[in-house]
C-alpha cells in the first residue's frame, strides 16, 4: 500500500465538482473508490498468502521426501559397520564359546559357507545339477534339475559346506551358484557331554548371515547370554571336566554293554559346591548331527532323552538313608536303637515285606546295612507324614531341579497327591516317589556336605555354596558312617576297592508297567555313593536301566551286582583324574624308581 504514486484519491476533485453540478451526492464517489481500493488490497493479500502457502508446501514436501528417502535407504541398504568407530573390533563371533572348568573348548564357532543358486543367472542349469549331485552324493539330481530349470529364482542347496566342497563348486565356474558366509556351531568332542550341550541350529536365515539358535540343553538355556554382544565373546564356563566326562562315558558304556542294560546314567557332583563335574546319559548322540525328535515310541528310548535330568524313576532303597538321617536328626533314634522288623506290615490291600528274613529286630545301622524295608517303614512311622514331607522338600526332592538345562523343568518328581501314612512308609524306602538321578545326587551331596543344602549347578562356582542346614552335622556324619558300613559290611561289597574308601547305598526298584503294576524281570538299579568316606568331597550316582548280570547260574539284577561294580570301576578310574590322593599301602611299592637323574 506504500505505492502511493498509483493511488487513486478517494475524492478526486474533478469528479466531485462534476457530481455537484449534476446534483449527485459526492460521498457516493468516495464510497465507491474506497470499495475499489479495499478490493485491490484484498486481492494483493490473497496472492501473497497463496505464494507463502506454496513455498511452505514446497518446503514440507521437500522435508518429507528427504525423510522418506532416508527411511527407504535405511530399510533397503545392507547394514554396514561404522567405519570410524573403535567398537567394531571387539565383536568376535556371533555366539560365545562354551568351555569346561579348565577352559577346554566344548562348543565353538567355525566360519563356513552356505551354497545357494540363482537359476535365472545360470548358464548350463542341467550340467550344474549333474555336477552338484556328483560333489554332494546325497543331493537328488532330478530334483535339482527341476529346481534349476523351473520358475524359481532362488534355491538353497546346502546350509554348510566344507572348504573342499566349496572349491569343487567354485571350479564348476557356474555364475548362478553363489556362496553366503555362515558361522556354524562345532562340538569338537563329538558325543562327549552331548546331553548337556544339547545342540544348535539356524534361526532366521538370510543370504549373508544366519542366526544360530540353541535347540536344547545349555545352548538353549543360555541362548540370550551366548548371543549377547555385551559379553564381548567371553566364553561360558561350565563346571564339567572334559577328561572326567570322557572317562565316565567310556566306563559307563562298558558297564552298560557288559550288563546288557538298555540305558545308563551317571552323575559326579562336587559335594561342597554342587558343581556337576560329569553327567552322562546313555545312549547318547552327536550334537553336530543332532537327530530329529522321535515321533513315536516311548521318549525314554530316544538317545535325545537325558536320563540324568528328565528320567524320573522310583530309585528304591537309596532313599532309606534319608529316613534314617531324619530320624537321627530329630533325635528319635541313635544308630544303635533296636527296631522291630517283624513283618510283613499289612496296610489295606498292601503289604510291606523284606527281601530276606533278617530276624526279629535290627539296629538302625543294620537296617541301612541290610536294607530292611520294614525297619525303614517303622522309622518313617515315628517321623510322621508332615515332617517327612518337609524334610524331602528341604532336600529338594519334591520339585524340579534348578540345574541350568532347558530340560530341567520336565524332570519334575512324581509324587502321590494323597500323602497317606502308607505313602510315608513306601516313600521311606523309595517307592511311590519318582525322582531323577540328579535329585538323588543333590540330596546325597547334602548329606556329604554335613547337612548343608546343595543345589546342583552346571556353571563353574568360585566358592562353596552356603545353603541352609537341612539336618544337623552330627546326624549327617552318622548317616555318612552308615553309608560306609553298607560298603564294608552290607549290600555294596563290590565297592570295597583298594586305594579309596567309598560310602554308599544300593537301590533296586522294579520298573512299573505302563498298564499298572510292576515288571518281575525289569529293574532300575542305582548306586548312590560318596568318596572319600572319611570326608566326602564327591558324590557319584550310577543308575542302570534293565541291567542283568549273567555270569552266575541264574540272572542277577540287584544293584549290588550291577550298579556297584560299575561305580567302583568308575571311581578307580576318575578319582586319580580328580587329583584325589589314594590310600597308599604302607609297604613300599616295588618298581617306583627315580628314572631321571
Amino acid at each position: 500500500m506504500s505505492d502511493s504514486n498509483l493511488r487513486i484519491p478517494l475524492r478526486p476533485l474533478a469528479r466531485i465538482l462534476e457530481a455537484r453540478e449534476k446534483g449527485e451526492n459526492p460521498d457516493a464517489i468516495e464510497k465507491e473508490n474506497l470499495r475499489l481500493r479495499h478490493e485491490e488490497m484484498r486481492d494483493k493479500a490473497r496472492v501473497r498468502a497463496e505464494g507463502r502457502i506454496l513455498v511452505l508446501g514446497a518446503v514440507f514436501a521437500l522435508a518429507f521426501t528427504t525423510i522418506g528417502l532416508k527411511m527407504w535407504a535405511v530399510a533397503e541398504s545392507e547394514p554396514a559397520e561404522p567405519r570410524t568407530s573403535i567398537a567394531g573390533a571387539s565383536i568376535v563371533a556371533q555366539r560365545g564359546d562354551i568351555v569346561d572348568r579348565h577352559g577346554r573348548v566344548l562348543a565353538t564357532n567355525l566360519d563356513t559357507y552356505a551354497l545357494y543358486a540363482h537359476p535365472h543367472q545360470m548358464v548350463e542349469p542341467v550340467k550344474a545339477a549333474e555336477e552338484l549331485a556328483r560333489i554332494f552324493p546325497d543331493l537328488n539330481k532330478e530334483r535339482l534339475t527341476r529346481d534349476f530349470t523351473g520358475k524359481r529364482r532362488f534355491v538353497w542347496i546346502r546350509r554348510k559346506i566344507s572348504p573342499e566342497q566349496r572349491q569343487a563348486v567354485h571350479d564348476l565356474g557356474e555364475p548362478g551358484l553363489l556362496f553366503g558366509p555362515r558361522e556354524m556351531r562345532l562340538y569338537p568332542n563329538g558325543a562327549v557331554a552331548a546331553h548337556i550341550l544339547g545342540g544348535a541350529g539356524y534361526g532366521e536365515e538370510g543370504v549373508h548371515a544366519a542366526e544360530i539358535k540353541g535347540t536344547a540343553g545349555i545352548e538353549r538355556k543360555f541362548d540370550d547370554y551366548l548371543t549377547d554382544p555385551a559379553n564381548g565373546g567371553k566364553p561360558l564356563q561350565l563346571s564339567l571336566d572334559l577328561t572326567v566326562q570322557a572317562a565316565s562315558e567310556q566306563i559307563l558304556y562298558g558297564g552298560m554293554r557288559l550288563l546288557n542294560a538298555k540305558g545308563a546314567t551317571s552323575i559326579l557332583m562336587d559335594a561342597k559346591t554342587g558343581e556337576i563335574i560329569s553327567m552322562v546319559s546313555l545312549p547318547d548322540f552327536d550334537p553336530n548331527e543332532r537327530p530329529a525328535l522321535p515321533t513315536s515310541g516311548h521318549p525314554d528310548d530316544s538317545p535325545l532323552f537325558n536320563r540324568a535330568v528328565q528320567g524320573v524313576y522310583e530309585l528304591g532303597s537309596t532313599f532309606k538313608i534319608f529316613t534314617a538321617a531324619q530320624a537321627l536328626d530329630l533325635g528319635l533314634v541313635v544308630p544303635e536303637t533296636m527296631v522291630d522288623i517283624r513283618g510283613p506290615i499289612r496296610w489295606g490291600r498292601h503289604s510291606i515285606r523284606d527281601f530276606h528274613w533278617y530276624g526279629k529286630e535290627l539296629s538302625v545301622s543294620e537296617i541301612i546295612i541290610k536294607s530292611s524295608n520294614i525297619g525303614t517303614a517303622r522309622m518313617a512311622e515315628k517321623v510322621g507324614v508332615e515332617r517327612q514331607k518337609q524334610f524331602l522338600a528341604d532336600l529338594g526332592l519334591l520339585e524340579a531341579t534348578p540345574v541350568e538345562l532347558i530340560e530341567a523343568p520336565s524332570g519334575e518328581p512324581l509324587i502321590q497327591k494323597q500323602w497317606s501314612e502308607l505313602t510315608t512308609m513306601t516313600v521311606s524306602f523309595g517307592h511311590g516317589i519318582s525322582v531323577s538321578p540328579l535329585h538323588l545326587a543333590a540330596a546325597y551331596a547334602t548329606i556329604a556336605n554335613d547337612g548343608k543344602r546343595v543345589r546342583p549347578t552346571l556353571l563353574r562356582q568360585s566358592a562353596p555354596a552356603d545353603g541352609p542346614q537341612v539336618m544337623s552335622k552330627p546326624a549327617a556324619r552318622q548317616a555318612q558312617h552308615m553309608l560306609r558300613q553298607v560298603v564294608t559290611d552290607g549290600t555294596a561289597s563290590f565297592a570295597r576297592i583298594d586305594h579309596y574308601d567309598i560310602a554308599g547305598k544300593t537301590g533296586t526298584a522294579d520298573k512299573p508297567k505302563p498298564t499298572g503294576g510292576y515288571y518281575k524281570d525289569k529293574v532300575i538299579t542305582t548306586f548312590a555313593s560318596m568318596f572319600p568316606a572319611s570326608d566326602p568331597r564327591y558324590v557319584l550316582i550310577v543308575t542302570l536301566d534293565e541291567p542283568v548280570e549273567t555270569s552266575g547260574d541264574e540272572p542277577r539284577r540287584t544293584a549290588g551286582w550291577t550298579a556297584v561294580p560299575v561305580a567302583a570301576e568308575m571311581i578307580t578310574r576318575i578319582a586319580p583324574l580328580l587329583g584325589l590322593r589314594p590310600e597308599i599301602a604302607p609297604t613300599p611299592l616295588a618298581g617306583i624308581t627315580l628314572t631321571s637323574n
Partner: protein
Amino acid sequence: MRTLLYILSFAALIGLGFWAYQENYRTKQIVNETERLQQNIANARARLGVLRAEWAYLNRPDRLRELAELNFSALSLMPMTPDQFGRTDQVDYPMPEPRPLLKITDPVDVSTMAMQGGQP
C-alpha cells in the same frame, strides 16, 4: 585500511581451505588404515578361532584314546590308576657311592682364621 582487511581475510580463507583440504585427506587416509587394520584383526581372529577349534578337535578324548591304543606298542600309555601314586619316601633313590677312604697324608687347615685375608 579496508583493502588490507579484505586481503587479509581472503588470505585467511585460502589458508583455512587448504588446511581443511589436508585434514580431510588425512582423515580419509587414517580411516582407510583403520579399516585395513580392523580387517587384519578380524582375519587373525577368524584364523585363531579355526586353529582353536582344530586344536580342540584334534585333542578330543576319543581320538587321543584311539591314538594311545594304536601306538600302545611304542608308548605303552595306560589310563591313570591309583597305584601309580606314590609317596616321595617310596622312591628308590640311587644309593650314594661309598666314598673311598682317604689316607690323610697332609693335614688340612679347617680353621676359618686363615680365610680372613686369603682367597676363598
